[in-house]
């Protein structure tokens, strides 16, 4: 198992180089088009965007490394936000509301994991089902109306506090989460098992790894990350729309893949996923600075994904 992992770890560095390289190229290009792109405001705007997507991408990436997908993160993101708003509006304190929404995320992660692992259903289908189930519930419960926060609890400043200029505290939480998950993935037995389970489940099982438990744990991590991103969104927007987070799951997978995570499992890094989210942020904000219609963004991401896809196939050969 250790040989397996050390091989992967060497690859991480090279994989991350591609996304760093892309970020540099994009930044120079957008800065050339509009020199204001090099301003602090642009950077803060990019970081704000990258933070919410990135927190989700970290969890999704962790799960992808363990060999599974989670398409329900967009729905969990919206639903956990809704739970927080309900709890706060009904008079509960923020820590209690946060606890409830994280509890919900853990439950969804467990269900996703158990259904996938013990039901022997591909995670793509199991979490697709969960994604629609939660979205349907959201629409039915809210009647299609956005739900607003009656008053913002003072504790939520831990996400919105402006550290320097427009740089929000949520970006620092994002960095903290990167460190925690990166250490967890590379320096703990659980992380090593997750990589082994994703890369070579048969070998991992033969070596005595309890594949099912490891995978279920990764599903819970993915769900928890989505719920945390939901908290950041509630603090920023003070509302949850029933359609919030639609499409975020695919954006998170795209950020992970751009950051070097393999769709086949076993390969990838947390730092890579964070950089992938940063690249997505650079492109989104850069296009606005360039004055290009915003819908080009999707085309750009698609273009990059194809290139990264081709490169990773070539490397594997």
């Amino acid at each position, binding site marked *: 198992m250790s040989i397996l992992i050390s091989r992967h770890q060497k690859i991480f560095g090279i994989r991350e180089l591609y996304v760093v390289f892309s970020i540099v190229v994009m930044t120079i290009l957008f800065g050339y088009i*509009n020199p204001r792109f090099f301003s602090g405001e642009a950077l803060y705007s990019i970081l704000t965007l990258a933070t919410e997507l990135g927190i989700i991408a970290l969890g999704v990436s962790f799960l992808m490394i363990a060999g599974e997908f989670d398409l329900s993160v967009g729905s969990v993101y919206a639903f956990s936000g809704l739970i927080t708003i309900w709890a706060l509006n009904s008079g509960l304190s923020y820590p209690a509301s946060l606890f409830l929404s994280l509890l919900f995320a853990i439950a969804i992660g467990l269900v996703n994991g158990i259904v996938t692992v013990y039901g022997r259903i591909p995670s793509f289908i199991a979490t697709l089902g969960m994604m629609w189930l939660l979205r349907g519930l959201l629409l039915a419960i809210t009647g299609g109306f956005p739900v607003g926060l009656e008053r913002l609890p003072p504790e939520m400043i831990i996400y919105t506090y402006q550290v320097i200029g427009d740089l929000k505290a949520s970006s620092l939480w994002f960095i903290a989460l990167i460190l925690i998950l990166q250490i967890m993935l590379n320096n703990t037995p659980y992380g090593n098992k997750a990589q082994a389970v994703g890369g070579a489940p048969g070998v991992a099982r033969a070596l005595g790894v309890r594949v099912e438990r490891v995978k279920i744990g990764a599903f819970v991590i993915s769900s928890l990350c989505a719920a945390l991103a939901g908290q950041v969104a509630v603090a920023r927007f003070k*509302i949850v*729309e029933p359609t*919030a987070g639609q499409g975020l799951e695919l954006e998170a997978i795209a950020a992970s893949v751009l950051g070097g995570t393999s769709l086949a499992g076993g390969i990838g890094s947390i730092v890579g996923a964070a950089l992938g989210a940063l690249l997505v942020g650079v492109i989104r904000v850069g296009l*606005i600075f360039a*004055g290009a219609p915003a819908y080009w963004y999707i085309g750009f991401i698609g273009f990059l994904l194809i290139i990264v896809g081709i490169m990773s196939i070539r490397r594997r050969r």
Partner: protein
Amino acid sequence: MPLGGLKGITKSLWIAVSVVLLVIGVGAGYAIGTSIAPVKETITVARTITQAVEQTVTVTIAPTVAPQYTLYYISHGGPGDPWWAPVIKGAELAGKLLGVKVVYLGPEKFSVKWLVDTLQSAVAAKPDGIIITITDYRALDEPLRRVIAQGIPVLAVNVYDPRPEDQRIPYLGYIGQEEYQAGYQLAKYTITWFQRNMGRLPTGAVIGIHEVGHVGLELRAKGIQDAFKEAGLAIPEKLDITTDVTKAYEILKSYVTTRRGIEVIFTLGPLGAHPAMQLVRDLNLVGKLFVSTVDLDDKIISGIRDGAVIAAVSQQPFAQGFLPVVYMYLYVRFGIMPPSQIPTGPTIIDKSLVDLVLKQIRETGGA
């Protein structure tokens, strides 16, 4: 992974290819859509010219060659929604005529998060003005107040902040339709039409709502219900007819065929009006069962012509694109304050106005 030998060469090759592709992708896209680099240079020239003109107090009427100002038009309506096509066209034409660079930004999918994020990025680009739909005043309140405090002028379009004057976001003005009034005026017109043409009040009506929870549509529906209440008539029920025209047709069919006395189907947009008109024709009830609707297109006009539709409310989307650019230009260039409300509707379109509206649809793509 070892970097030597053939593998290393292949890798370097791929890096090179990806750089070239990236550069081509960005460069081509940028060249097709915006050609900003030359604009950047000419902006300075244009500013110098403007300063010179100001100093000698000479007014030149010739259109400005290069964009003098950059305005961001941020809306919740993406290019996938045909209703917004005339809006985009209007904003672009006004920009061209005035020498203003207008950047229209709309999401692929309705999203308040997208709107706030895009606003934030657009502000960082330091535009001369921002035109925005106040799709959710709670989410936009804080960011927009910050934008206004930075001295960037903001105009609201299409959806406004519904709170009282002293609480609302201090934007310069609102350009668009009052949604409640659109429904209210349509229902009042329909009731009067019945009195004039049938010599009596309608015996029953229903409202087909295609997006439950859409605040604008809900307000239209409320306007219709209030007008019926005021006239002492039974309040029309709201039916969730979905955005799927096949479902809408079946839902409306089962409602009107199982309820007695339904004479009017109110719809709140073309997505409801099209199946409703089809139903009236299929049931051979033209002249007995009528459609009254908000928004217009050529199909609805044909309905007004053949009598399936009593009237439609137009909010003239082209004007919602064109006028804010003009008002923002007047404000930024000359310091002219726009009025706090500039209505582009509701205008009731019946048989007498069909030809005029056809011209608008032909010229602008919508009405």
